[in-house]
């Protein structure tokens, strides 16, 4: 209980007894402590308290399932079957806490980190990883900015914001052409931070290349918005035939309610990296409102039998359907374990090199094996198009990943 000791120490410095003090054993030692013996430690950093706790906990469990699977298969064979252990940290969704937790996990001997769900926290943890020369494999992190700094130790499994938005525009073109109702003009409704406006910018750029008109481009503040009716009315007045929405869960649900009451003359509602439209919870919450909504996003591969087995196992163990984020954490831990296996070492530097050259088959949708570009981004990361159909989210495009064919229309128009 080294934090106690800290309080005791500092308390003495301040010539005061805080009551939290007391004798306590010495905490973890210097950086490399315990890396060479005992289980191989992988540090998982997720927001398991605070408002993102549900996803954070899902992802921590996803990582744990991966560790269990590796151990069940005999541990790290190149290290004589050494077991793997997940050491966990709670970022509380805060960047500075994320940083000190990352430091703690590295001090505890983690050969690599996995996390963190939020871009701002990942940005901070990436710096810690870089400076401690410990690889950091991101499971969920939308922001592309992290990969523009030339970091050597940062890797990412999920497709970035730009990759998703670009693919979303291409899918829209293809699906609307196929349906014989080629898209003319897309209205874009997005939350105004990095996440939403980044998606809007990338989508606009890709749409222009495909000859799709864009406008109006409407943003809102996700933290305070309580009604989007006026914004959707603006969409209706503009005559756009598709409405693209990039937002978080709560505001995207608000948008769905507004769309249902305004009923603009659309051919499709198109989620781009949308935090709601591919969630089973959205299907339950929105009911008929959300039927036939499309969503281009990263997703667990529903067509892969291994993924199906994993999700069944998760459901049985935790009584909860496994989300995409958790499957991504699973993939990320597999990448790390693969790196350790290849490096035959727990030296983070060697593990980093092995991860950089790794090829691992993902359980999330991808264009192929997970393989990292020089900047650390997953070369084969690849979003899929989903649609809410008969109370279920189904993969509909591209055809090789499709569970059913896309139905290009909206529920309130024939």
């Amino acid at each position, binding site marked *: 209980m080294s934090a106690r000791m800290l309080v005791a120490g500092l308390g003495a410095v301040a010539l005061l007894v805080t009551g939290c003090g007391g004798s306590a054993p010495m905490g973890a030692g210097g950086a490399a402590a315990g890396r060479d013996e005992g289980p191989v430690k992988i540090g998982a950093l997720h927001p398991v*308290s*605070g*408002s993102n706790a549900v996803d954070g906990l899902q992802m921590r469990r996803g990582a744990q399932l991966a560790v269990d699977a590796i151990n069940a298969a005999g541990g790290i064979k190149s290290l004589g079957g050494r077991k793997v252990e997940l050491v966990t940290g709670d970022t509380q969704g805060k960047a500075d806490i994320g940083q000190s937790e990352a430091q703690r996990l590295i001090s505890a001997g983690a050969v690599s980190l996995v996390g963190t769900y939020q871009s701002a926290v990942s940005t901070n943890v990436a710096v810690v990883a870089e400076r401690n020369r410990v690889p950091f494999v991101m499971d969920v992190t939308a922001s592309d900015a992290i990969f523009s700094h030339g970091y050597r130790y940062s890797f990412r499994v999920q497709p970035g914001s730009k990759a998703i938005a670009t693919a979303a525009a291409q899918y829209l073109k293809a699906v609307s052409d196929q349906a014989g109702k080629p898209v003319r003009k897309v209205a874009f409704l997005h939350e105004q931070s990095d996440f939403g406006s980044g998606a809007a910018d990338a989508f606009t750029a890709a749409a222009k290349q495909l000859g799709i008109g864009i406008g109006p481009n409407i*943003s*809102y503040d996700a933290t305070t918005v*309580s009604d989007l*009716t*006026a914004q959707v009315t603006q969409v209706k007045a503009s005559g756009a035939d598709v409405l693209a929405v990039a937002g978080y869960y709560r505001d995207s649900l608000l948008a769905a*309610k507004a769309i249902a009451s305004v009923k603009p003359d659309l051919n499709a509602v198109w989620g781009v990296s949308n935090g709601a439209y591919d969630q089973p919870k959205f299907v339950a919450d929105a009911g008929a409102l959300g039927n036939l909504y499309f969503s281009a996003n990263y997703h667990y591969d529903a067509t892969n039998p291994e993924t199906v087995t994993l999700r069944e196992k998760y459901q049985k163990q935790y009584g909860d359907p496994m989300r995409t984020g958790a499957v991504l954490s699973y993939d990320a831990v597999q990448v790390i374990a693969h790196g350790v296996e290849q490096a035959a070492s727990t030296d983070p530097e060697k593990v980093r090199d092995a991860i950089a050259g790794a090829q691992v088959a993902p359980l999330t949708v991808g264009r192929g094996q997970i393989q990292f570009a020089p900047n650390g981004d997953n070369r084969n990361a690849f979003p899929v198009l989903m649609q809410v159909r008969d109370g279920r989210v189904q993969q509909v495009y591209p055809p090789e990943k499709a569970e059913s064919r896309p139905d290009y229309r909206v529920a309130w128009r024939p």
Partner: protein
Amino acid sequence: MTELDTGAPVVPETAPPDRKAKADKGFLGRAGIVAAVLVVAIVLALVQSGSGLVVWQSVVTGILTGGLYGLIAMGLTLIFGVLDIVNFAHGAFLAVAMFISFGMVQATGLHPYLTLVVAVPVLFLLGAAVHRGLLSGAGGRSLENQLLITLGLSLLLENGLLMFFGAEPKTIALPGDFQFPLLGAVVAGSRLYAFLGAIVLGGLLFWLLRRTRLGTAIRAVAANASGAALVGINVRRMHTLTFAIGTACAGAAAVLAGPLVTVTPTLGEQFNITAFVVVVLGGMGNVVGALVGGLLIGLVEQLTTIYLGGQSSLLGVFVVFVLVLFLRPQGLFGRRA
């Protein structure tokens, strides 16, 4: 003692009684100015957006949302005006009441509005307990202590809800929700109900404060606590009662607003700031002012979205807030209730 920790009102009350007629005239004048500014703002919005339908829908949405803001701010203005407590836990009280409503609907399948019967009394008791236990007495007198206690309380309530209900966002479905067109704009039934609820609640509070003995006592305590004590009013009890009534209002607001929002433990934050702006705008302690202030803020939000695309609607709200603080700190309709 500094001005921070006296129990006296922060706003100097300068108007002697014989100026009541004048004050009324000033009141009408101000209302006229506000109305004129609003009309100009709406015309400008028309020019800016070029679509009558969009502006009309914005105005309708603004008024309906504004009713909701007014509803939430009413309890807060009572507490602020009478007790001089800047209650940062108001949003958390709102969240607690929403979870009560959600839990009852989930467990018993009641109509959401019927949960008022439980949510309001529970919040009343909670408010009374919080005031007695945490805010009355020496520890709760200074502004900084109030701030920390109410902030700590909101952390406590929010995270208590988080532990109990989990972070998963919840929704309360309103059976038989409908919408109807109003000259081209759409009006959702649930929002209209919340709006009407705000007017009813405002009327109820107004009646309570103006026409009952209890209300007279509360107003006496607000105007001059030591004077009220001299004529035999139990000031501490009045404070507790007022605080409890204020939180009970949050309970009523939460039940009416429940079907409109996604229920999460931290949802109060979203409304707390706006509610404070509304309180200052309407004049603290002024229940009807809170309703009108809410409508104004609802409109300001919507118009900001039209004027400054890409900006948060909050920016416009804060600009109006700062202007009001500087130019008319007692609020646009600044007479105490």
